[in-house]
């Protein structure tokens, strides 16, 4: 960059610092105000008894944390998350990768199929949950799944209300699978486009048969960085699951005692009847810590950000 010869270095540095903050300042200030301040505030609140108030006086040390960790329902919300991600992460990974591989090899109609699978991304969880709850998996006879079961002479199933077997998991998993598979398919398609054709040519020369062998030794390793990013995003998003659980399971009587992921638990804890903001803040701090640790560990473990060629 051509330097202005007469300007002093110090003045130039000040000039640059000024412009840097003119560009970055508004954003950085807002982010600090709406992310760091609330986090700090809630760390503070988490040490107090704060029912219905944000300026509490009664310092309770680590009581809120102790209460939470001793609370079976908080622990079971973490188990719910673990079960949920044990299903949704592999299912979405396999489906979106499979779709991407199949769509990528199409000769005609690639744009059409990509659009169809991507279309659910436009849907909100609320809309999808409405369709799933009232139509696909409606527990009465006229629901789509029960209609199909009826053709085979089976009895209707109360999908969302039955805990033994826990059919509600089928409803919860499929709604998210439908909503997000197309999004990750697009990520995989982008990854597939970046694989240099010469790799396949070399593999063919070495006698690798197209299909499983090529996938196993060329495609899958070449998609490594995409895979790592996809799995990370899937876990982070599963941890934040709220919309479909809330809209599928809660009704005028409230939320059933089962299938409460962490954010649903936190929602009722902090904003329910008790409005226990001290306990809610402690919960938020714990969850933030958990997800930050999970992210860092997973990124470290899989070498995210490490350049590879």
């Amino acid at each position, binding site marked *: *960059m051509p330097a202005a010869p007469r300007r002093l270095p110090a003045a130039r540095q000040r000039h640059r610092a000024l*412009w840097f*903050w003119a*560009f*970055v300042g*508004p*954003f950085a200030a*807002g*982010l600090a*105000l*709406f*992310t760091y301040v*609330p*986090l700090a505030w*809630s760390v503070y609140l988490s040490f107090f008894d704060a029912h219905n108030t944000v300026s509490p006086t009664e310092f309770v040390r680590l009581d809120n944390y102790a209460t939470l960790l001793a609370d079976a329902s908080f622990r079971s919300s973490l188990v719910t998350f673990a079960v949920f991600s044990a299903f949704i992460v592999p299912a979405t990974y396999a489906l979106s990768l499979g779709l991407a591989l199949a*769509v990528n090899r*199409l000769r005609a109609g690639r744009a059409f*199929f*990509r659009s169809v*699978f*991507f*279309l*659910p991304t*436009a*849907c*909100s969880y*609320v*809309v*999808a949950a*409405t*369709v799933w709850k*009232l139509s*696909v998996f409606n527990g009465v006879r*006229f629901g*789509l799944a029960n*209609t199909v079961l009826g053709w085979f002479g089976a009895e209707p199933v109360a999908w969302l209300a039955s805990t033994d077997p826990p059919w509600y998991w089928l409803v919860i998993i499929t709604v998210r699978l439908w909503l997000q598979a*197309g999004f990750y398919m697009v*990520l995989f398609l982008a990854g597939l486009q970046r694989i240099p054709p010469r790799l396949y040519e070399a593999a063919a020369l070495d006698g690798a048969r197209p299909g499983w062998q090529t996938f196993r030794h060329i495609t899958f390793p070449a998609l490594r960085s*995409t895979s790592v*990013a*996809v799995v990370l*995003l899937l876990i*982070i998003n599963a*941890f*934040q699951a*709220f919309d479909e659980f809330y*809209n599928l399971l809660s*009704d*005028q009587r409230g939320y059933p005692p089962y299938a409460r992921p962490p*954010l649903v638990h*936190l929602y009722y804890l*902090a*904003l329910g009847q008790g409005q226990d*903001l001290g306990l*809610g*803040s402690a*919960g938020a701090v714990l*969850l933030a810590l958990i*997800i930050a640790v999970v992210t860092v560990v997973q990124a470290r473990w899989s070498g*995210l950000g490490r350049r590879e060629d």
Partner: protein
Amino acid sequence: MDDALVRTGRALRLMLLTALAVLFLIPFYLLVRGGLASEEEITAPGWTLFPAGPHWSNVRELFTDPDVPMARALLNSSLIAVATTLGTLLLASLAGYGLARIPYRHADAVFYAILGTLLVPAAVTFVPSFVLVSSLGWVSSLRGLIVPTLFSAFACFVFRQYFLGFPRELEDAAQVDGLGYWRTYWRVVVPNSRPVFAAVGTIVFIGAWNAFLWPLVIGQGRDSWTVQVALSTFTTAQTVQIHELFVAAAVSILPLLLVFLLLQRYIVAGVERSGIDD
């Protein structure tokens, strides 16, 4: 023989994809079917493929039902989505440009402070954010729904990565012409970066329109309900008839489907950029 095998494989793949495509489209079909049916048709035993004589009056019924503030919710959602999109684009692109192009001693520290917020997703901190917004007195107001969501570290990150790869020659030429950072940005950089603005903008718009948890927490009064909150209230409370719920759901995704079909290539580009794999 190999040829025949390849052709069979290709045909099988096409059949499988077609079957999956039909499965993926079924929910949209169910929305339209439910939205245009009468209540009796929906709850009738036996499946009718499509309602006899589509009940377009369902739409009028939805907008005239005094118990369902759908028009107001659509207005709120539109205002929120447009304001969030414009605000995010402005703030995040400026910040991204400053981080990418203006040499400053502490730029790295600022960048890592911004990146660090990506470690803690916004949804996880909704309780602290609610505490802050309620002490500002912004509960049940559009301000409370819009302002806290304007500062997207993700958008800032995407813009920074993009501007790092922006051709420097263009900016150098502008600076030779005597333009400072500010005018270079507006006259040279922005006009030559429309695709990335479109990509980030569509992603932010979709996210804002479909957002649920934050509007549920903040939009407590009926007048501040967004489309998603309104729909959810009727779905979970089951105070509204099913056919009306389906019309409401269909109406709520209509604007997005339009945006989606018109701008799909930008959205795909935006999703590809959001892959944090480089």
